[in-house]
Structure formats: C-alpha cells, structure tokens
C-alpha cells in the first residue's frame, strides 16, 4: 500500500522541480484532451505553445500580456509572503484602468509630457484606495481578506461597467459602451516600434527588481516574511501586523492599478468593458508557479501570458473554444498544488500488516 509520509525536512529539489513537473503534466493532459476531441495533439500543442512566439510580433504580444501579469503578481507576492490571501488583484486592476480612464478623458484636450504620468497616477491611486478598503476591513473589523477581496472584484467590475455605459460613454460612439479614444499624450510609448509592446513591460520588470530588493535586502521584506511564517514570532518581535497588512495591500493595489492603467493607455487606448481577460486572477497562478520569487514570477508570467495568446491561436487555427485558455491555466494550477504536496510529503511503500503477530498477541493476552 502507498503511504503519504511527512518529510523530516522540506525538499528543496521538489520546491523547484514542482513547477516544471506541473508544466509537463499539463502538457501531457493537454495531449490527451486534444486526442479525445479528435484534434491532432501535436498540432494542438504546437499552436498553443510554439507558433505564438515564433516571430517578433508574437514575442511582442507575449510581452504585452506579460506586463499586467507581472505587475499584478509582484504586488500579490508581497501579500502572499505575509500569508495575506489577497484575491483582489483583478479588482485593483479594473479600478486602476477606470481611474486612469477618467483622468485621460478629462485631459483629452491637453497635451504635454505631464499628461501620461498624471493619468497613470490616477489609476494607481484609485486602485490603492480600492485595496485600502480590504485592508481596513481586515485590520479593523477582522474580515477575512479572501472573501472581501473577491466581493470587491465584482463591485469593481460592475462599477467599471456602469461608468463605461454611463458617464464615460463616448457620445459619438454609436451607442457602443466605450469611452472616447485617449489623446496621444496619454498613451504609453511603444518599446519596439511596429509592435504593440509598450512601456508597461518595463514597469513589470522594474516591479520584479523592486520585489527582489524588497525580499532579499530590506527589513520590511524580512518582517513580511516573519509575519507569514510565524505570526506569533512577529508579535513577539513587535512587527506590527496591522502596519504590514496595510503596506502589503497598498503595494498590491499600486502595482495592479498601474497594470490596469497601462492596459488602457497601452494597447487599448480607451476604456472598454473587456479591459481584462482575467489578468488579476491569472496572476495568482503566476505567484505560486513562480515560487513567490522575483525571478520565478518573471518566468511564470511569460508562461501564463503564453496561455492567453496560445488560446487565441487555437481559436483561430483549430477552431477551438476560448475556454481552452482557462482550461490550461486551471490544469497548471491543479498540478502545481498537487506537486507541491510532495515538497512536504513523500510517498512510501507501507509494509503489509503483521497478521501473524497480531494473532500471537491476542493469544498471549488471553493466557495472561
């Protein structure tokens, strides 16, 4: 019989092998699924994983999708290190997009170098306020942050829908729910001319560097780690849990807000209802896949970005449904969590029960 046994020491090898193993298992499952649907699995996997990034345009698209994932994931990592389960990056992202859009529409007739920073800042601040709601609910009313952040995501989405259908709707937009196009001064410059890749990716990479500095060098990062690993030791040391909760939520709000603001001022150029294909949720997978480490989340955000464009590619090339993106993301998270169990546990063969000795015991006891 197989037995799951706690390891005396966590396996470092497994900690880093687990994401790779999860990816391999996801690919294998994808292979089987393509077969089951009567599609050519080799083609399917090629269209999903390879074709999208086989040219410069494709790579630029990858970077385009990476940027919001990386920004959201960087903020979430700060929360998750402290075991604050903020699921609200999606909401922060939407409010960031909304705030930036409101400002961009206000400034649509202005031009100058200052417009873009102001627009981005509006998004960032808006999202920080949004994150502060969840932080305050947690520190002052002891509300579970998982529930409040999920609910705030829905509120944020509906708020965005209201604004885009109402106050911010382009009066000359033939009734479509979308804002006016932002002025050029409010748009992020392209990183590679001729592609859609914009400055957002640079923000993301900077966030990753900042994340690395925070946890590898700074005292506040250390305090967040202690709160996450051992809240009693943190209380003993006097690392204020409230203060750190606020810090983590505000950082998460700021980065996800910047992601949202970069999305509307980058590839989209206006506010539309479908700002996010779920970046804020996918970023959760990025964080865990990237082992809550700066380098890890850069790699993981690239992989998850690929699932978005790979999914689109499959829709076009093989006539597959859009759900294929969510399916691959879900599989990846599922296998990752499963493989992560083996960081703390190992499988052992259990020797068969000692039937013979048991009989001897009862006999002996009877005589005694």
């Amino acid at each position, binding site marked *: 019989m197989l037995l799951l046994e706690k390891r*005396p*020491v966590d396996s470092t090898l497994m900690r880093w092998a687990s994401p790779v193993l999860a990816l391999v298992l996801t690919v294998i499952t994808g292979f089987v699924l393509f077969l089951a649907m009567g599609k050519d699995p080799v083609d399917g996997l090629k269209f999903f994983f390879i074709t999208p990034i086989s040219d410069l345009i494709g790579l630029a698209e990858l970077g385009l999708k990476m940027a919001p994932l990386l920004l959201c994931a960087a903020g979430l990592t700060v929360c998750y290190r402290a075991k604050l389960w903020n699921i609200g990056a999606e909401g922060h992202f939407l409010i960031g997009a909304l705030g930036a859009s409101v400002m961009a529409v206000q400034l649509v007739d202005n031009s100058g170098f200052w417009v873009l920073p102001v627009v981005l800042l509006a998004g960032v601040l808006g999202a920080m306020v949004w994150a502060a709601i969840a932080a305050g609910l947690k520190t002052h009313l002891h509300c579970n942050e998982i529930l409040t952040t999920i609910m705030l995501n829905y509120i944020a989405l509906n708020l965005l829908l209201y604004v885009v259908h109402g106050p911010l709707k382009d009066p000359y937009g033939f009734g479509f729910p979308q804002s006016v196009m932002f002025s050029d001064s409010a748009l992020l410059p392209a990183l590679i001319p001729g592609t859609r890749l914009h400055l957002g990716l640079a923000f993301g990479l900077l966030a990753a560097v900042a994340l690395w500095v925070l946890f590898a*060098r*700074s*005292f*506040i990062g*250390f305090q967040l*780690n*202690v709160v996450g*690993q*051992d809240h*009693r*030791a943190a*209380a*003993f*040391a*006097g*690392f*204020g849990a409230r203060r750190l909760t606020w810090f983590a939520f505000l950082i998460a709000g700021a980065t996800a807000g910047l992601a949202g603001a970069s999305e509307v001022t980058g590839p989209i150029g206006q506010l539309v209802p479908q700002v996010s294909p779920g970046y804020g949720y996918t970023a959760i997978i990025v964080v865990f896949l990237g082992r809550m480490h700066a380098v890890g989340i850069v790699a993981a955000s690239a992989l998850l970005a690929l699932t978005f464009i790979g999914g689109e590619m499959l829709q076009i090339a093989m006539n597959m449904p859009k759900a294929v993106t969510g399916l691959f993301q879900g599989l990846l998270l599922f296998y990752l969590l499963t493989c992560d169990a083996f960081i703390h546990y190992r499988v052992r063969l259990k020797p068969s029960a*000692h039937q013979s*000795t*048991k009989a*001897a*015991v009862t006999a*002996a*006891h009877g*005589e*005694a």
Partner: protein
Amino acid sequence: MTAALRLKLENIVKEYPGCRANDGIDLTVEAGEIHALLGENGAGKSTLMKVIYGVVQPDEGRMLWNGHEVRVENPAQARSMGIGMVFQHFSLFETLTVAENIALSLPPEEARDRGALDQRIREVSERYGMALDPRRYVSTLSVGERQRVEIVRCLIQETTLLILDEPTSVLTPQEVTALFSTLRQLAKEGCSILFISHKLEEVRSLCHNATVLRQGRVSGDCQPAELSAAEIARMMVGDDTPISTQVSTAEPGDVLLDVRNLNWKSNDPFGTSLDQVSLNLREGEIVGIAGVAGNGQDELLKALSGEIRTDSGSMRFADTDLGSLAPDQRRKLGVAIVPEERLGRGAVPEMSLADNALLTASGQGLVERGMIRFGKVREFSREVIRRFGVRCTGENSAAGSLSGGNLQKYIIGREALQNPRLLVASHPTWGVDVGSAVAIHEALVRLRDEGAAIVLISEDLDELYQLCNRLGALCHGRLSPLAPTAELSIEQLGQWMAGEFESGEVAHAAA
C-alpha cells in the same frame, strides 16, 4: 521469579530519520515495583514509552508482557492488556465532565451505564485518596485534579502497569506528596509503575529501582535511594558535563521596574486574567516567579514584553511608562524577553539563525535606512554562537534544526549580547539538557552581575532557589508577595502556588 515479572524489554531499537532514539534498550519491571526511567531530554525516554504504549513500533527487539512475547500495535491494545499511560500534556476535553471524559476511553458496553460508571469513579478515586466528583466539568478543575482524572481513568480499566510521564512538573509540592502516597498504595496492591522524571530527589524518595538512559542507551541501573542525586546526575549526563552552577551573591542597586496593581482581562473563557499584580525589581537582582503552569505566567510575560497592552500607569521602567509601548519600543529601552516557546515565538523554525538574530536585534546596527546589513547580521549571529557555545553547523542553520538546549542558548545569547537592562525569561531551561542549563544559568548570573534586572519565570523550584534573590508565586493571575529566597520555606512557597497568600505559617491540608 518469572511470575512476578510484569514487563521485560530486550534490545529495543527505534530509529527515526537522522536519529537512533532507542539503541538496544533492556528494561525489566516487576509486579508492584515503582521503576524510574531517568534521562535528559532527548535521551530516548519518550520514545521508549511510546514503544511500550504502542504509539510507535520498535524496529528491533522483543517485549515480554507477563512472560509472553507481545507486539503492541496501538494504544487501544495496550490499554486492553492493562497498560495505562498519563501523558505530560493531558488528553482531556475541557467542555466535558469527568465521567464523560473517562467514558470516552472505555469500551462502549462499559461506558453505557453512566450511573454505574459514576459509582465506579467515586469508589476508585476515594480508595486511592484522589477525591473526584464525576459530574464536574474538566474546565473547572485544577491541574492537579485533571491529573487525577487521567490516573483514575487508567485505574478503572484495571491497569497493571501505569506509565507516568513527568507527572510532578505541573504540581505544587503538597500535591506531589499526595500523588506519591497514592502511587505507593497502588504499588503495594501489585500495580507496577513506570515513573519518568528528571527530578532526582523525587525519584530517590519514591522509586525502588531506576534505569538511566543516555543518548538512546542504558547508561546504568541503580537503586536510587542508595545513591546521591549527584551520582545519579553523573549517570545521566556522562563525565564531562558540569552539573551545577556556583551562584555568587547579588548586590542589588536601584529599583528599575515597578509594577503596581497591574490588571488585564483575558478574552478567552479558559484563559487567565492578571489580577492586581504588583512587583518591583532592582538592578542586579534576579526575582523568581514560581507557579503551576497556566496560572498567568505567560500573560505576565506578555504584559511585560508588550505583546498584550495593559492600562497605562501600572508599569514604570526607569522613568518611562511602559504600559502603552509596543514590543519594539520597549526593546529599544533595554527590555529583553525570552519567551517560553522557543520555536514559533522566540525563533522562526524555518529561518536561519542569522535571520533569527534579526528578529529582535535589529536595533544593534543590523539595519540601516531600512536595508538589512547582512554582514553585520552574520557577525552578530556568529558572536552569539561563539560566546554561548551554540552547537550548530553555522549561522545559516535553520533554527528548527537545533536541539532545544542549543536553540535556547542562542536565544538567551541573542538577548544578552544586546546588553539589556531588564531581562524577562520564561522557563529558560525547560526541556534543556543539563550542560546547556548550566550555561544558561551562568549567562543569567553574568547579566545580573553586569547590573541587569532579571525576572525568572519557572516551574523548576530548584532553579528558582538556586538563582533568585527574591521569590514569589503566581496563582490564578494573582501574584504573592515577594520574599527573600533565604527566608522562604518551600512549604510557604507551595501554599503561595496554591493561592494561599495570606495564611501565615499554619499549613492548611491541601483539599
């Protein structure tokens, strides 16, 4: 003599990953014998008990029970054979009554008739002088009474071998006396008792024979009454470890900490509230706080450390009002704390020793403009390891990988190297090997001589009498007066531990 042989272990071996906890242990216990199992923490006592009680299976070796070879698969089987065990940490449900708790461990057919069970509980408990009301809720019982529930639970199941794991560590001296007379009576009636302890005087007064373990092996068998405590201690620790500290007399200075009528109300219905606690502490002295576990020791420590906030005005430290300050602010003033739990409060188990230095010592120039100065952290950590003889592979070892004694030395060292003005240490040598305990005691005395004021919270009366200038006891969150150690009899301290603060020299029989 085989008829009288109750239990015989031959060459018991139990190996855990990275440690051979039992390495060929032989042990015999006769009917009606009180047999002590001695040894330091980590010597393999607990593992051996778990083998006998069926919690773990040995890798090698034979166990003979009343002359028959047996293999105990689980505790239920052990109980049905007549082996009962009282663990150090009781396994009782506080929200159930005494009778309900006992019924839970009985076979269903015996547990069903509650009237008869109540009757049996009364009979057994009265017969052995351990009065118990079966209808009372466990949450209302004192620690001593809870232990009685555990023992009565074993006796009701016709136990012929009773294993007690450090039973006296939670009792007042008077309760210990009562327990011992019960155990002697049990032994007289033929019940064998395996008594695990590291308190040598108790073992000498109670036990017929003793087996001493060291590093998983039997290091000697003896009749404890015929040897001195020092001779037995030698068998426990080997030849090259010092077994006691020479403590010089203290020269106390000015009052440093003045606590007056400190109150704190616990939110937990089973927690302890602090009630009018007053104490003062002078530079260069050690004040000891005795008491049975769970009488407010942890709350007092937290009130002093700042982990719980109390009303302002009740605590003065030098010229500062301490009550409203956060733990890190108090630390800046020179308050150092060594909490009872080493792992999970005093240190983060998964983090390295260096990172754990940063936990409380960040004010020692280890952090500059919000950035950690890793070189300084490592240097500080290495200094602690060197000065306090912490055995580890280096400052990168995870705190959780160190033995209790070594980690405790590290934690004490971490606080001591910050030159504290006030050190509050809770159970600093609990579960620590003798060599480390001596090192820790020496460190405390050295700090005292350098002018620090020390509060020592402990259940180990020997330790308190050895180190402290003045002693008091906590009971139900109230603190007794503090008396100079030399003038305080152990009987008086025992009464204080039981909450009788006003009664003078007249000793009331413990109810």
